[in-house]
């Protein structure tokens, strides 16, 4: 029977999609999975909306409309199969079940729909977002959280396993695999990811998709659409025997078999109920006009009123919130004058405000960056830029010819750049503290900064005693941070890059006449 197989199809698809997105985040690049991952990245709900706002129009920014349309048609299939955090919760629920033997009854109908809590959270998230504060989006969005968890927890695990195997092979002189560099994220970032993962996992183990139906803002938006969906799960009065088996397997706790009601807003279309019901007591079909109206009447309740009310009051109180959230400034001053060093945003992010207004802190750029210079920051951009990444030149530097982060960003916070365009973007500007330089302090040659500079914005010029000292040409500087990274005067660098609030343009270096011909006709020795 058809409906019986829906669950298997859903499980198969969700695992496939989950694997594809997990691979994208932990950096496994295999052809077909990669292509699928790219498509799925464009179909994530919040990233797609933000991309639409950031880049305004391209076919790829319309993923969220497709999801809304699908939800109006079929209900929350997005939540059951496309959302990677949803599948992660299902996996946790499944594992938790292994430790609860003997209990046939897993879930039961909950009449508490938590409408007020749910729509207050949604309203608050939307208000903050409208005013350019990404705090709640970055804290609650499921895609963002899946990314955070994958990059800070699953990726190190994957690298550890991969490297162990690689080193084992190298022991036999087989150099087939490339060991990956392990770059642990800052401990506070890992802590947040662990906390988020724990909250999601405990909720999933305890009450299935409780997170999706109380906290998740995407779940709340899609619930509004699912309430009006064309295809929906309903009880068949004549076949249902009130056995409650469907309730026991319902992760959303939305099946009320006593009253033969399905809360369409909470139903995530996992189709478990069809597999559990021995009598064919449920059906998935085009809703009749009557049932749709009945349902709509019953759901226009407190929750939605709260949603509108919070939205309105939030908008009014916004100026206050905004004042409190301005906290852009230096991360660790060290020897650098306070307030001098501004966080550096990735190339292609246009300006600090463009970046902080559009980044959902999913850390895909953090994971994809080959030099691992992009690192999550905590409050470097203030509250509204909670957890958004910046370039950390103490860890690494931005590769001059690389455009990787601009290719992967799903929200348009980092816009796509060609190699030639990227080389002309000034993300920051060099500053030199002559009093800390090795050459002045130790009176020995160094020049590590100039050596690494790809544009010669730092050049070594003759100084005292035949030594060479750095001289900076800020107008040539692209802000890659190679000088700061290479500078050996740890922990306080003698040369550093300060981020530009609005990215500038650097001259493109051309080859001119190309190589000169040598005009000598013998060796000079």
């Amino acid at each position, binding site marked *: 029977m058809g409906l019986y197989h829906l669950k298997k199809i859903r499980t198969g698809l969700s695992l496939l999609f989950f694997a594809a997105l997990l691979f994208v985040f932990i950096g496994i690049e295999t052809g077909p999975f990669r292509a699928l991952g790219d498509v799925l990245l464009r179909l994530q709900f919040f990233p797609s909306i933000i991309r639409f706002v950031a880049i305004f129009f391209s076919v790829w920014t319309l993923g969220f409309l497709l999801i809304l349309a699908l939800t109006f048609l079929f209900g929350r299939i997005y939540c059951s199969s496309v959302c990677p955090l949803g599948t992660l919760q299902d996996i946790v629920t499944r594992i938790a079940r292994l430790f609860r033997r003997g209990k046939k009854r897993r879930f039961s109908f909950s009449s508490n729909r938590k409408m007020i809590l749910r729509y207050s959270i949604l309203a608050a998230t939307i208000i903050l977002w409208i005013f350019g504060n990404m705090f709640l989006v970055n804290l609650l969005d499921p895609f963002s959280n899946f990314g955070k968890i994958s990059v800070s927890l699953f990726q190190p695990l994957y690298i550890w396993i991969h490297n162990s195997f690689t080193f084992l092979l190298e022991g036999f002189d087989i*150099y087939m695999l490339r060991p990956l560099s392990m770059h642990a994220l800052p401990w506070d970032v890992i802590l947040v990811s662990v906390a988020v993962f724990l909250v999601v996992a405990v909720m999933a183990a305890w009450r299935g998709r409780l997170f999706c139906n109380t906290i998740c803002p995407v779940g709340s938006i899609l619930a509004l659409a699912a309430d009006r969906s064309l295809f929906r799960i309903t009880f068949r009065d004549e076949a249902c025997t009130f056995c409650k088996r469907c309730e026991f397997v319902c992760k959303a706790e939305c099946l009320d078999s006593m009253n033969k009601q399905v809360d369409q807003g909470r139903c995530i279309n996992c189709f478990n109920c069809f597999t559990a019901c021995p009598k064919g007591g449920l059906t998935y079909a085009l809703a009749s006009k009557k049932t749709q109206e009945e349902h709509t009447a019953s759901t226009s309740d407190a929750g939605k009123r709260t949603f509108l009310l919070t939205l309105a009051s939030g908008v009014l109180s916004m100026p206050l919130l905004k004042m409190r959230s301005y906290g852009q400034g230096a991360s660790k001053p060290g020897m650098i004058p306070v307030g001098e060093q501004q966080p550096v945003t990735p190339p292609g992010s246009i300006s600090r405000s463009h970046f902080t207004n559009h980044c959902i802190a999913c850390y895909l750029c953090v994971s994809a960056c*080959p030099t691992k210079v992009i690192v999550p920051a905590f409050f470097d951009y203030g509250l509204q830029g909670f957890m958004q990444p910046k370039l950390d030149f103490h860890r690494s530097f931005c*590769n001059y010819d690389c455009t990787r982060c601009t290719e992967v960003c799903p929200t348009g916070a980092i816009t796509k750049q060609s190699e030639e365009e990227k080389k002309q973007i000034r993300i920051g500007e060099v500053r030199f503290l002559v009093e800390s330089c090795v050459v002045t302090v*130790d009176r020995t*040659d*160094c*020049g590590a900064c100039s050596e690494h500079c*790809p544009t010669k914005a730092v050049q070594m010029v003759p100084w005292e005693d035949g030594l060479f000292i750095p001289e900076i040409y800020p107008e040539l500087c692209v802000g890659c941070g190679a000088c700061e990274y290479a500078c050996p005067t740890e922990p306080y660098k003698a040369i550093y890059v300060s981020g530009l609030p609005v990215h500038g343009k650097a001259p493109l270096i051309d080859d001119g006449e190309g190589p000169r011909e040598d005009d000598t006709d013998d*060796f000079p020795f």
Partner: protein
Amino acid sequence: MNRRQFIQKSVILSALGSLYASTIGKIPGFAASPASSGPGLYDLVAVRGGEPLELYRRAMEEMGGMERYVKQGQTVILKPNASWDTPPERAANTNPDLMGAIVEDCFRAGAGRVLAFDNTCDNWERSYENSGVAGAVRRAGGQMLHAHLERYYKEVSIPGAKRLKTAQVYEHLLDKDNVFINIPVLKHHGSTTITIAMKNLMGVVWDRRFWHRNDLHQCIADFCLFRKPDLNIVDAYLVMTQNGPRGTSTADLTRMRSILVSSDILAVDAAGASMLNHEPADIAHLRIGQEMNIGNLNLSQLNIRRVSL
């Protein structure tokens, strides 16, 4: 003189000439001025005026062939400059064609394994691939080794060193039964003025910052006390004469179409320095190297074979 006489005389003269060339002319100390000469006996071979592969083949022929350095079944470690994520035409890294030819030559001479590595400045994967070095080594049957993790480096002490008393050195260099061939590219350098063979060895240690922090020139010389390459082959085909060591465009280059080969790291650096218009003794790490008896930078005291193709 009629035509017959002319032919007779020229035949006799050329016969004598070749007799001389094949007997007395070959005897060391009898013909050309420096005491020792002939293939394999030069302190330094410098060839100019050809394409990279011609230059290399001629230079190794003059050096007595790779067989002099590589014994049957030996492992050869190559240290090219593959430090920068720039394409071959920018000449910030060793010419890949030259690398390929050296790998093939080592195998021809009987090498068991040919391994190459560099602790790169730019991202290692991008530098290895975009420099063309990794591809050339692999195509010739060699192995490009990973050198981007600290685990591949072992702490050693360097007796006699002034500043670099200990260093974490790439593990394969600790096995002194290996043949170690240094293959730098001749370049200008912002702070050390030149970067050739001695400076190229910065890419075999893990912590370069220590060198920068503790008298760079002294550390460069100190490292040679740990292990000097058995052979230095300097790529001077396309030479970065300004904005080194990374360069900004091909406008920084001069086509010198040359190669320098020597087993004396100081001699080869002295020759390279003078090609970049510097007095060798003006370069601090060369001067220190001379004081520490690492080699001989007085080119006038050396038996040099100069060839123009």
